[in-house]
């Protein structure tokens, strides 16, 4: 068995766990805040997407590096 396949799997899996928790917390807080003050939703949505993009980037970097391990090395 080639170890780079395993390495890519571990990279992507651990990165997705972290980002899953992160986006979950972010989403719950967003909905909480939106329920508390619905008039702030447009502003909150912008900030939510910005933070989601930042959090989302972590597993994406993991996927990128994992694919790099699989196909480019």
């Amino acid at each position, binding site marked *: 068995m080639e170890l780079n396949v395993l390495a890519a799997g571990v990279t992507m899996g651990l990165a997705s766990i972290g980002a899953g928790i992160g986006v979950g917390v972010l989403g719950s807080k967003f909905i909480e805040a939106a329920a508390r003050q619905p008039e702030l939703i447009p502003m909150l949505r912008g900030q939510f*997407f*910005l933070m989601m*993009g*930042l959090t*989302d*980037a972590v597993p*994406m*970097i*993991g*996927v*990128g*590096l994992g*694919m*790099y391990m699989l*196909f*480019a090395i």
Partner: protein
Amino acid sequence: MATELTTESYIGHHLTNLTCGKTPDGWTCDPYMVDKMGFWAFHVDSLFWSILLGALFITIFRLGIPKSTDSAPSGLQNIVEMCIEFVNDNVQSLFGSVKNTLIAPLALTVFVWILFMNLMDLVPVDFLPVLAGHIAYIVAGDSVGWISSPESFYFKVVPTTDPNITLGMAFAIFVLTIYYSITVKGPKAFIAELTLHPFGKWLIPVNFILEMVNFIAKPISLGLRLFGNLYAGEMIFILIALMLFFGSIPIGIMGFGLHLVWALFHILIVALQAFIFMALTIAYLAMAHETEEH
């Protein structure tokens, strides 16, 4: 080299740049000479597309500015004004009262340029490489030895899936951050910020190491974030395209649907990543202008 088309060769073909460089025998673009090129190796396809799209950005925004303001704004002018207003709002909300006339044009360039480069991801993965391969074969197939068939010509279309482009942009921002830190805060305050921050003056080496990690991580994460997102997106397009090639007809039809779904979802990532790169550029430069003590 007309090798047999396998999964690995197909993916590898899409992930290899057209590299031109200086070998001991002179300049060449032969993909089998890449190991001998050393420092003077250029990814010509990334450079070509990024410069072309930069020129397109400048042309569109120049054409969008009307000669006279009497008539009602046309379609293109509306788009240009929307972009400028959007960037201006972001700069003002993040930058506050600091007077710096470079930041807003820089942010606009970063945003639109990266958006254009990312949008090349939505062009079907095989279209431009195959087209470029056939053109190169027709033009130079007889005279250049290594173009033995259209398939032997590597061509990678999306510049932001090349880490050299994204990290290059990120480090350009990093240099600007250092420049403004030194000119606005003064060298003394800048060094104090790097050495005195978390633990006070008795632990200067520890402070320095911690702050240095923080400092270097900024441009690297900025560049890798954009690269990782676009590389992963491109990779998924390639994997879906593989379904069309090597699966049966039902799998091919499913692949078509998946292409559509992923392309629609990818529009979000494309725009979001361009926006995040711009927002972080502004935020880092704003941090370089902050003068108050912590």
